[in-house]
Structure formats: C-alpha cells, structure tokens
C-alpha cells in the first residue's frame, strides 16, 4: 500500500529507527511499511496516524484509488 511515511519521517528528521522506537515496533517493520511490502493492521495504522497527527487517509493511499494518482 502506497504511503507518505518516508516523507513525513524526513520532514521530522527521524531515522527509521527513531520512528520504530516511537511506534514501539522493529526498524524492519517501518522499512517494510514504507516500501509498501507490508500493510499495517488497523491499530498500527491508527498509531502511525496519531503520531503524525494526521488521518489514516492522509498517510496511506487506498489501493482502489492508487490509479487515480
């Protein structure tokens, strides 16, 4: 699933490890989500959204709308 995680992280000057610590997940998880290899569960997606103070839709692109972009 496409997302803006890498951009949002870069805006805050956070490494993948920094973000992983804040989300209480592994750095591998952050990398897998950023690169679209892993779609997070709804609770983790909410956690990510709350951390960046954005809605889930502002971070993740719905797969059904990926072609619209």
């Amino acid at each position, binding site marked *: 699933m496409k997302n803006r995680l890498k951009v949002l992280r870069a805006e805050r000057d956070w490494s993948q490890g920094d973000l992983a610590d804040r989300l*209480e997940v592994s750095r591998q998880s952050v990398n*897998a989500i950023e690169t679209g290899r*892993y779609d*997070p*569960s709804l609770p983790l997606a909410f956690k990510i959204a709350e951390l960046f103070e954005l809605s889930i839709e502002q971070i993740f692109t719905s797969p059904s709308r990926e072609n619209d972009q």
Partner: protein
Amino acid sequence: MAKNPAVKRYTRRVLILSLIYAALLCGAVYLFVHHLLSGPAAWIAGVLPALPIIGIFVAIGRYLVEETDEYLRDQFVRQALIASGFALSIATAWGFLENFDLVPHVYAYYAAILWFAGLGLGACFNTFQSSRGAA
C-alpha cells in the same frame, strides 16, 4: 531485532531445550546400547528425547503469542508455513516411494528435521523478499 524481548525469550528456550535434548539423547542411547532397559522403562527412556523437541514446537508457539511486532510475527508465520509445506511434501512423496519399495525406510522423526530445515528455507525466502523491496 536484537533487543526484542520475545526473540530473546525464544532463543533462550530453544537453547535450553537443545541442551536437554542432547543430554537425554546421549542417556537414552547409552541405556539402549548397553541393554539396561526393558518393559515400561524402555518406553519411557525411548520417548524422552522427543519431549524437548516437542518443547521447541511449544517455544515456537509461545514466540508467536508473545511477539508484539505484527510484521515480525507475520514473517515468522510465513516461515513456519514454508517449513510445514516443505516437510509435509517431502514426507508424503517419500512415503509413497517407500511404499513401492523404491527408497529405504526412514524414521518418522526425520519429519521434524525436515521441518526445521524448512524454517531455514523460510528465513531465506523472507530475506529474499525483504531485499527485493528494501529502501
């Protein structure tokens, strides 16, 4: 994830169980080679080395329950599914070949050995998948 407490607990359990397995296997082999057992005692001594191996399966189950990182859990589940498919496929094919007297008989516990080898294959598959999309 080196600091992951669930991985640490899993590793510690597997190490302890492996040591217990080695000790029980050596003990059982000694007792049987010297014909020191018979009857129910032989049955008990014979099955003892299997118990730590069963314990490792339990440790794997505990890890999946205790792992709080959903991505790592997902990776390990895939690894275990690959291991299961690998071991069951070979065991099934070997069973038919053995049935038709085309291959020699092998002990059933080789299924567990195949499964652990399959875990290694699964780990390779996960690494390959990760490297394809790594940032």
